[in-house]
């Protein structure tokens, strides 16, 4: 470097080039340090999630088990008749018999059952009966319809077409309480089956209530802390950080104990003669709201406190000295300055609350479960993976949008803590 400097202006251009090259190298090296984590997150985080969300549109159960039927259904001219001709029925019969023999029919039976009630017994029942036939009948169409009259119904065939894959919008439509009718146009599902929008609404309502409660309790706490001397504030901060570091399960257990029928809260209420008998506080909505607020409160206080600490006191003093009434000064001078903290904290709490599973599962009743519960339920209990994935897609999309707003507000890595 010393040499180039001594060489004089003749060398400036190459010096510039060297500098640019050094700068590029520096950037590349910096990026190489980040790369391992990017790869790690891609392989063990992004790929599993992408694989899960993919199941909301990929629908290959029928296609893989009944390849001939899927093909026949796809090529059939449905303009002619909603119940297809012999060629399609013959493909179906062959697939049915084969899948009954190698015991794969259950997958299709399950898939059709998602769509039409009795789909499972229709498939399994037909398969069992026609597998016993000694030789193929003259017309599969007549035989199948005779065995199970449902094969003669347009609704059944519409369901088969919807399940023919490889892609489907069936599950996604179902999560917004819609479906395709026989003609393929999108219509609302009958009211008794319209449950998912209600679950979404409930999830949003719980998350919103918790966020507002966190703001109402968190704001005064952060404000109080921000006005204290640093030593004292740090000391009191431990009261916020202790629950933050205490495992979720411990806090949930604590709330179950405190809120139960003979728990502390009920004892206190009765002692103060506020109620006569014990009131039900747990395994219902109030339990969910109380414990979620408790769990998420630190996520509101920390960003609020971080912003409030940086607000200079001079502005409020100036507002006072200019004659603004205290409340006006607070509303028009202080609040706008801490707005980024309010927004960041609220969005953070709302995002985390939306995806909550453990707390509602343990302290909520059947009517207080949020969307995550149903994702888990459809994955492990009813094995309706397409529906689980579709619900996951909705939740994921909501989270992603809010997170984009959030990271725009706080600017990447910094400012979260």
């Amino acid at each position, binding site marked *: 470097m010393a040499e180039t400097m001594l060489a004089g202006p003749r060398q400036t251009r190459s010096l510039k080039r060297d500098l640019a090259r050094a700068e590029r190298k*520096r*950037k*590349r090296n910096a*990026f*190489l*340090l*980040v790369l391992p984590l990017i790869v*790690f*997150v891609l392989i*063990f*985080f992004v*790929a*599993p999630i992408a*694989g*899960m969300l993919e*199941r909301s549109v990929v629908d290959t159960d029928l296609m893989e088990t009944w390849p001939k039927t899927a093909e026949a259904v796809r090529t059939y001219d449905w303009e002619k008749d909603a119940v297809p001709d012999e060629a399609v029925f013959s493909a179906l019969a062959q697939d049915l018999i084969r899948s009954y023999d190698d015991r794969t029919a259950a997958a299709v039976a399950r898939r059709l059952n998602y769509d039409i009630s009795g789909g499972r017994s229709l498939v399994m029942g037909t398969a069992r009966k026609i597998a016993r036939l000694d030789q193929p009948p003259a017309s599969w169409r007549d035989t199948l319809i005779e065995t199970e009259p449902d094969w003669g119904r347009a609704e059944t065939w519409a369901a088969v077409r919807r399940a023919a894959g490889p892609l489907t919008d069936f599950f996604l439509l179902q999560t917004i309480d819609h479906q395709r009718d026989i003609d393929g146009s999108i219509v609302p599902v009958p009211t008794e089956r319209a449950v998912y929008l209600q679950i979404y609404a409930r999830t949003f309502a719980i998350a919103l209530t918790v966020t507002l409660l966190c703001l109402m309790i*968190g704001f*005064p*706490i952060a*404000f*109080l802390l921000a006005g204290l001397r640093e030593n004292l504030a740090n000391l009191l901060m431990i009261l*916020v*950080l*202790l629950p933050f*570091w*205490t*495992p*979720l*399960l*411990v*806090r*949930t*257990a*604590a709330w*179950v*104990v405190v809120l139960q029928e003979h*728990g*502390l809260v009920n*004892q206190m209420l009765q002692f103060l003669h506020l109620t006569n008998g014990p009131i039900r506080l747990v395994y219902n909505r109030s339990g969910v709201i109380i414990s979620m607020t408790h769990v998420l409160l630190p996520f509101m206080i920390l960003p609020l406190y971080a912003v409030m600490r940086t607000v200079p006191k001079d502005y409020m003093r100036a507002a*006072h*000295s200019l004659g603004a*009434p*205290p*409340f006006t000064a607070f509303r028009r001078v202080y609040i706008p300055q801490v707005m980024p903290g309010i927004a960041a904290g609220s969005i953070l709490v709302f*995002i985390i609350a*939306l*995806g909550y*599973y*453990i707390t509602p599962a343990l302290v909520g009743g059947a009517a207080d479960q949020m969307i995550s519960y149903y994702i*888990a339920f459809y994955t492990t209990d009813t094995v309706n993976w397409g529906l689980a994935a579709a619900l*996951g897609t909705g939740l*994921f999309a909501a*989270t992603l949008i809010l*997170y984009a707003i*959030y990271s725009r507000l706080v*600017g*990447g*890595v*910094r400012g979260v*803590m």
Partner: protein
Amino acid sequence: MSGAVTGTEKAWRVVLYVVAIGGFFFLVAPILAIVPLSFNDGQFLTYPLRGISLRWYEDFFFSGTWMSSIRNSLIIGVVAATIATFLGTLAAAGLWLADFPGKRFISAFLLAPMIVPMVIYAVGLYFYFAPFDLTATFTGLILAHAVLGTPFVVITVTATLSGFDRTLIRAGLSLGASPIRVARSVVFPLIAPGVIFGGLFAFSVSLEEVITVLFIGGPNQRTLPREMFSGIRENISPTIAAAATIMIVLAVLLLLSAEFLRRRSSRLQAKG
């Protein structure tokens, strides 16, 4: 203050203090309330206590399931936190060293594991790990928890680095040290408290995580929170209170060491 303190302002102030103090109480009281119950001699988790006894701790420490759950939690937590600390520290250093294209997006991307609903991730892993036989293995859970810990390491190390004086690096380089030597002898000692803080954070994330354990953990990977989950769901017993108390003590220890490290790192930075 020139403005006279009016009655309304005083009233507001009182409301503020009352809510804040009530809020502090709300935050801490339930956690503290469960501790004495773990020493209760009676069968039920209610006050007043029916005498002091350590029987539930005996129950806890002499039960094979609780002990193996502690062991599982420690194995998974320590290994996952180590991986997370290593990858997260490198990434935070890279993000701090230079502005490269897409940096904003990359940092937002790296924090995603903190934000994406855990059930989606756990269900994703449930399908993703199956063909590799990673479900119901320690490896699978360690990898999952390592991913979940990385954002916290990135955040804490980034925060530490933002107070780091870059001229120290130039000084080291100009004195003839290799970049690796500078990283090892100058940068690392100064940011070490932040790195350890991040590691503790990642460890505590693993220690409290239960959803991925529910989905991809097998009977041999039942962790402490997993046992507590079944305990709370099936029959909440005083042993749960004992387990909770032990975890609270652990949390206090983690909090104190984190606080110690945070102060130490800010003192070091003030000197630099």
